[in-house]
């Protein structure tokens, strides 16, 4: 009898066959959040597929601005990124960004890392703006509204929304539920909630119900497409 109640076909199936199919509709001018911190959590294969689409005039939101010549750096190298929003672009192997920045070929919005995370979280949570103590009195708060609340001084910061989020997780199911791996979790869960369309590459797709409901980090409601990319090991990164 239980079998007769089962749907004849799954009506929610967010699994897409390839990275190319997952990013095919990214449009020129899109704002794209890219998960990851250093190389951990960077969805390399989704970024490569994005590059292949030829989409241009993009805004990228990522903690860093690319390492070496892969991932976000490879995307920047195409010169199709107009603007990057990040907290830490300067790394020993961020030569692609460095060159573009010095020649004025990319705009940089530098955001303290916690404000970056909280602004992304605010977008997903429907918060219109928030007062943060981080950055008060510094160059990164210049021109921003400030306020003293209960004896402490704060800066008003606004949400960061995106058209697409490209993230990497450890496992996902056809409803889009995700779990992550160690510190590769980082920006994935908050970016998933902040984008109109969230695309997750996962090391493995598992059956519905196989993920422990107590341990699911990103509920499927935030994820629109899941693509299995096996053997996507995280490379070392220069500090």
């Amino acid at each position, binding site marked *: 009898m239980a079998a007769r109640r089962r749907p004849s076909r799954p009506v929610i199936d967010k699994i897409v066959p390839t990275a190319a199919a997952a990013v095919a509709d990214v449009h020129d001018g899109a704002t794209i959040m890219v998960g990851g911190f250093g190389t951990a959590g960077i969805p390399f294969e989704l970024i490569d597929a994005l590059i292949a689409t030829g989409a241009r005039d993009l805004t990228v939101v990522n903690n860093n601005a690319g390492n070496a010549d892969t991932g976000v750096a490879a995307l920047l190298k195409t010169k199709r990124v107009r603007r990057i929003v990040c907290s830490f672009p300067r790394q020993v192997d961020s030569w692609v960004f460095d060159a573009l920045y010095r020649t004025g070929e990319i705009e940089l919005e530098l955001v303290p890392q916690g404000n970056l995370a909280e602004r992304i979280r605010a977008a997903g949570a429907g918060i219109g703006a928030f007062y943060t103590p981080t950055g008060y009195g510094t160059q990164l708060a210049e021109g921003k509204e400030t306020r003293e609340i209960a004896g402490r001084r704060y800066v008003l910061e606004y949400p960061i929304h995106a058209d697409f989020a490209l993230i990497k997780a450890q496992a996902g199911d056809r409803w889009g539920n995700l779990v992550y791996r160690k510190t590769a979790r980082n920006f994935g869960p908050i970016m998933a*909630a902040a984008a109109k369309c969230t695309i997750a590459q996962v090391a493995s797709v598992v059956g519905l119900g196989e993920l422990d409901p107590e341990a699911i980090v990103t509920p499927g409601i935030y994820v629109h497409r899941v693509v299995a990319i096996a053997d996507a090991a995280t490379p070392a990164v220069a500090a």
Partner: protein
Amino acid sequence: MKRFTHDEMAARVARDIPDGAYVNLGIGLPTRVANHLPPDREIVLHTENGLLGMGPAPATGAEDFDLINAGKQPVTALPGASYFHHADSFAMMRGGHLDYCVLGAFQVSVAGDLANWHTGASDAIPAVGGAMDLAIGAKHVYVMMEHLTKDGASKIVARCTYPLTGLACVERIYTDLAVIDVTPAGLVAVDVVPGLPFAELARLTGVPLADGSAAVHVA
């Protein structure tokens, strides 16, 4: 006068919710919609107290009072369900991620203002719960209510006299007499209970109401 039964109202709401939708069903009448979601469709139910993928009530004796819905009734969790804390649950609501919510109401205004948390009576104990979050959060806010009060007054009003839950948030109203859309051009009855002439519905409703039922019946 024939009226839609509560089950007919719930079945109609269930039919109007598309496959794959994320849905929150409010306390009271809306909870009944769950009984009319056919098992061959996947619609994911959210409950404000931290569960996505809520299933039907458990069998008697199998209740687990750590697994309840917003109305504090025991429920179950479907395969694919996930638990989260209250700030995350309401971020999901406030952030506009739910496709539909279905709420009960005391009054809905022609502008789609909703009053459903407080009668305003001086001796009433006020309680709002998650109603205001749902009213402003879901992409589509549907209301299920009786068309008329016990005294025969319309619950669809020019301007709510009860304290508001949210402004201009209701998109569609399911009553025992009709299904009414709230549009920028005003209220439109897209369905009327069989046997009730539109003119009589309009008279009972007491606010400007367009007849959109023909268009729907054709479609």
